[in-house]
């Protein structure tokens, strides 16, 4: 039975159901329970934004708090994965990747290939990304393009509670390292989610809105921004097709190209910085493989190439909003040679 729950609850449910089903699933990270070694309550936090709350008591010994040593515990999760566990480690903010990236991109990502196919590394690294909470430059980045660039990593960004649960279950069951991106501004959003366990495959983009005039390719929180823009545009008769990539690696090229063949006009909306982003990656893909279908140059909507500013006034300018998407759509629909 599907009922409305939040993105956060959907993640918690995915973890609970998988930990019930499979003993080898363990959770680790900073304050994933909270209160370790302290005189007060255990499971005091359940994760800094509450995603893992309740698991500590439900699964004794399988939810491990860690010292603040990302390279040690992310590496430990990876090592444990090679030894038959299915760890779900939390890199609290993706901004912290710098202190543990080696373990992710030189170790986990490469074991399967480097060891001639003789290693499996079924680790999931959950991490928060994105601006909007005034958390400033070092707690608000996207950075998924950096991970997408690394062969051997799967990079997934669910935009809805339904996708969050299904994709986290899929990630846990996947035998490759999966970097699981959760936008901090989506935790409280709600949507229909089946009570039962289910999976959403990787490498399958989702056409969340059909339309014949413009293709909007997007991901993560920007899916909602794009849908807002599409609703506005529909009022003036422009029908947008919104394609949620869901996973940047593996990438569903076919759905993107199919949509472009149908509309001939493309806007790519990506919260990451403009250089070497998913927007540039998708644009190159389309320009190379669907050039003949294009009726106008591809428009990209990105955050600016600056660190994320703190002040509300500035952060609101920084994050791409529906108006910018509307403007981009108008540019491609109004373009003439």
């Amino acid at each position, binding site marked *: 039975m599907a009922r409305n729950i939040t993105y956060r609850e959907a993640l918690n449910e995915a973890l609970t159901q998988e930990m019930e089903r499979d003993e080898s699933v363990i959770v680790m990270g900073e304050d994933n329970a909270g209160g370790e070694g302290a005189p007060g309550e255990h499971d005091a936090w359940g994760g800094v934004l509450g995603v893992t709350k309740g698991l500590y008591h439900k699964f004794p010994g399988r939810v491990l708090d860690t010292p603040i*040593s990302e390279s040690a515990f992310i590496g430990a999760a990876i090592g444990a994965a090679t030894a038959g566990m299915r760890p779900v480690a939390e890199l609290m903010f993706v901004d912290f990747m710098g202190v543990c990236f080696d373990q992710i991109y030189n170790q986990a990502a490469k074991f399967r*290939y480097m060891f001639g196919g*003789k290693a499996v590394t079924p680790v999931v690294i959950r991490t928060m990304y994105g601006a909007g909470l005034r958390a400033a430059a070092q707690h608000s980045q996207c950075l998924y393009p950096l991970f997408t660039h690394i062969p051997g990593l799967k990079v997934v960004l669910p935009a809805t509670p339904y996708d969050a649960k299904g994709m986290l279950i899929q990630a846990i069951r996947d035998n490759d390292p999966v970097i699981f991106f959760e936008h901090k501004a989506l935790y409280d959003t709600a949507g229909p989610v089946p009570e039962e366990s289910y999976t959403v495959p990787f490498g399958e983009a989702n056409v969340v809105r059909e339309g014949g005039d413009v293709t909007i390719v997007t991901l993560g929180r920007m899916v909602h921004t794009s849908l807002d823009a599409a609703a506005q545009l529909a009022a003036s008769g422009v029908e947008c097709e919104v394609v949620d990539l869901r996973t940047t690696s593996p*990438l569903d090229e076919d759905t993107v190209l199919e949509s472009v063949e149908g509309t001939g006009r493309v806007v790519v909306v990506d919260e990451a910085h403009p250089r070497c982003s998913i927007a540039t990656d998708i644009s190159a893909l389309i320009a190379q493989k669907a050039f003949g279908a294009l009726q106008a140059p591809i428009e990209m909507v990105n955050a600016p190439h600056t660190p994320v500013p703190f002040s509300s006034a500035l952060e609101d300018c920084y994050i791409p909003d529906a108006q910018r998407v509307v403007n981009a759509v108008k540019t491609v629909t109004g373009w003439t040679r």
Partner: protein
Amino acid sequence: MTDTLERKTLTREQLLDAYRTMRTIREFEERVHREFATGEIPGFVHLYAGEEASAAGVCLNLDDRDTIASTHRGHGHCIAKGVDVGEMMAEIYGRRTGSCHGKGGSMHIADLSKGMLGANGIVGGGPPLICGTALAAKIKGTGGVSVAFFGDGGSNQGTTLESMNLACVWNLPAVFIAENNGYAESTASAWSVASDNIADRAAGFGMPGVIVDGFDFFATYEAAREAIARARQGGGPTLIEMKFTRYFGHFEGDQQTYRADEVAHARAELDCLERFAARVTETAELSRADLDALDAEIGAEIDKAVDDAKAAPLPTEADLLTDVYVRY
């Protein structure tokens, strides 16, 4: 330094095993040294000759439940943990028949079926992984122990220090082996390690620290035995510092102008194989004939490994895209 006088009695089988391991490593490395000079081996190799007693002394205390992680100087650890010598040589030559089908090379030889988590091209890459395998062993109750080998260079890497702390905080069945061969690349450990000994750092993490003459098999074996038993029984990690020297350069091709003549001295006076042989023949635990027989057998094995490797097929373009999902 621990004294070698107080030693547990090793059986004849164990002594033969120890000698076999060390001699295999020595012959393997010496041979690779010679072959590399011909230009036929691609990339980099980092040779373990001189350090055999560490790998042998530690791994003789381990079994298939146990995991080790190694460094870029990993051939010795691989051999001591039971990785197939022929497959190793083929891997170094980049052949399809290699341990990693030619995709890893010298620095990434691994065999997870033998608990060998791999040589590692990243200094300090191993210790966090070992925390993971130790965690897995603890949760699954296998009784397995995980051993992280790292060098004096690696001992300064943040990942290593974090791992030692984490292993102590989580009370993991782990052992940390700092192989101090005097140099991190061309930089002396006497300079780069701030404390007098790497083992002194153990106190900072709340675990025992032990200093061992790395040229003495019996000393390395004994120190490892105690630490591994402690870990297996739930007593937590230990840091063991092996002090010795490497006979070759950081990598093959290193002119080693930063060194004096310590290698000649070590080969002549300190060599682990010479000392082992002298000791076991003196006590008549093994005979010279036993050792000679092993020498001959191993010599032939290495010869065969090299011949086979040179004759083995290279991977093809089709192999390029296997073992990682590819959609592009």
